[in-house]
């Protein structure tokens, strides 16, 4: 740091203790260890990509682009996985459509409506929701919720029988295990994360903007649409994407209530299957190309969720910066 070279001779005079000393060995070691632990994150991500792709390679090689066909028949050595990709997309979409308005509503409730004292209990409820394990949702889903909602499906189906578009969407119910049921359960599960992220985003809206809206005589709704929304829409989009990623990857709850039927159908009340669900359900008996196919579905899932998460984090990160400008 000094541009001056040292004068000859050690430090004389004064109480002992020379000023010269190597940097303590422990200090350098500690830094290296800490760095290594940080790098572990990157290393693990890369290893995940490589090891799973390698395990799935026989599937990719055998099927090639046929992995994107709807032709899944392990007995006949057919592993076209379109049905599962479809199922994942549909259930995740249902989950997001249902969870986002609710989550944003709760986030707004917490930040704009509720006095501080009442905010804590509401947050506790959301935390409780988050801590229920996936498998418990699935257990409740298949043993309690599905049978109950099967009746509702029947009523709706008979109600829309004959009406063009709705009939295709909501007809043909079987038991309660279906795309729609899985979507609902997933919606419950992603609500906490979308809510808490939305809250964080809304909290970065500058108070002066809100006060400015009120000062012009705006109602709370008008303030929200005028001052909060423009600032937060980017961040909330990011939160929604994160919820989407979560819904796509949720395995056990989906595995238990989706119905495990590898079909592509527009009927939301019909049973279906999704990528994580089929992996979980069929891995036990799988070997060879079958197993490679299941792992390959995992690779696809990894790729989709990583991309979604990266985009989401970039959006949330950027809008958080802008919000505080």
């Amino acid at each position: 740091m000094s541009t001056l070279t040292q004068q000859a001779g050690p430090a004389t005079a004064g109480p002992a203790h020379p000023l010269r000393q190597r940097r303590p060995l422990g200090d350098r070691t500690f830094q290296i260890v800490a760095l290594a632990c940080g790098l572990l994150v990157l290393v693990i991500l890369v290893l995940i990509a490589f090891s799973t792709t390698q395990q799935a390679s026989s599937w990719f090689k055998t099927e090639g682009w046929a992995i994107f066909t709807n032709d899944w028949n392990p007995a006949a050595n057919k592993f076209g996985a379109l049905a599962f990709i479809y199922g994942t997309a549909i259930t995740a979409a249902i989950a997001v459509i249902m969870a986002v308005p609710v989550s944003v509503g709760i986030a707004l409730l917490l930040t704009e409506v509720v006095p501080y004292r009442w905010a804590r209990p509401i947050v506790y409820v959301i935390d409780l929701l988050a801590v229920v394990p996936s498998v418990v949702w699935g257990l409740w889903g298949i043993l309690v919720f599905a049978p109950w909602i099967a009746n509702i499906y029947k009523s709706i189906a008979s109600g829309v029988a004959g009406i063009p578009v709705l009939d295709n969407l909501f007809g043909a119910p079987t038991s309660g295990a279906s795309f729609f049921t899985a979507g609902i359960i997933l919606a419950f599960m992603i609500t906490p994360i979308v809510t808490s992220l939305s809250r964080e985003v809304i909290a970065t809206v500058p108070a002066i903007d809100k006060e400015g809206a009120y000062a012009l005589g705006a109602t709370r709704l008008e303030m929200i649409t005028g001052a909060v929304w423009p600032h937060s829409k980017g961040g909330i989009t990011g939160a929604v994407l994160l919820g989407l990623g979560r819904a796509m990857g949720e395995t056990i709850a989906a595995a238990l209530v989706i119905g495990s039927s590898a079909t592509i159908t527009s009927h939301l009340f019909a049973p279906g299957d999704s990528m994580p669900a089929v992996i979980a359900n069929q891995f036990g008996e799988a070997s060879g190309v079958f197993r490679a196919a299941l792992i390959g579905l995992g690779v696809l899932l990894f790729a989709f969720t990583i991309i979604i998460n990266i985009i989401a984090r970039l959006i949330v990160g950027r809008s958080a910066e802008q919000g505080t400008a």
Partner: protein
Amino acid sequence: METPEQNVAADPQLTETANPPLPKTAAEPQAQPEQYAASGESVFDVENVSIYYSAFRAVTDVSLTVHENEITAFIGPSGCGKTTVLRTLNRMNDLVAGARVEGDVRYRGASLYGKDVSPIAVRRRIGMVFQKPNPFPKSIYDNVAYGPRINGEHNKGKLNEIVERSLHQAALWDEVKDRLGKSGLSLSGGQAQRLCIARTLAVEPDVVLMDEPCSALDPIATGAIEDLMKEIKSRYTIVIVTHNMQQATRVSDRTAFFSVLRNEKSDTRTGVLVEYGPTEKIFHDPSDPRTEAYVTGQMG
């Protein structure tokens, strides 16, 4: 040795903010009258030191000598770099990214910024008390024992002795001797600052640097700390930054007055040492008109 004024004239970018300078005088009087003589050997020799944060020059061309067992005060308006210079004396500026020191800073003859010099060793010899008391969230005992412990002292008996001695020196022992186990955060402002002083004295430094130690305290606590400083100066060398001129007159033997030079082009401010000398002289018979303007209150 160039004086600050000569340096200013040589650098076309720096302008004066106050009156144009009178015919220059040296930073230190050549022939000192009896009562102004230095009492001991020099502890710090600062020569032509400029301090940069990346490309920005925060302080320019400071030269002064700090003498042993004296209290030296740095005074001046805010932004004049006095804290920056203080932190250079124990290499705390190393912690700021992009900070750079040019010139020669010598501690008892050895270069403080030499190649092999360890900042850790420096800071064990040259302690610092901060503006806002910052006790660790540990017990009072552990706060004071912290320094000796990291220096390798683990003997309970010795530690007890060191803690008691340091708290005595900091004039805090009587108030806390029955609650050494209580958290350091439970003390009042003045007590907490004395705890921080005790903590600094516990490692038996050679020098104690103080960065506006009383600015967060009430007048009574301030008085206690000033008394403390005068008490311990026979064992330590003290350099204190203060924005309170009366405090400088009350406690210090020597005073350095810093001021600010504005760079018109880049609209930045650079600190400069205007005058350095015995406190009596600085306040009653300053050589530089800027010093006079400041100490008589004409300049904020």
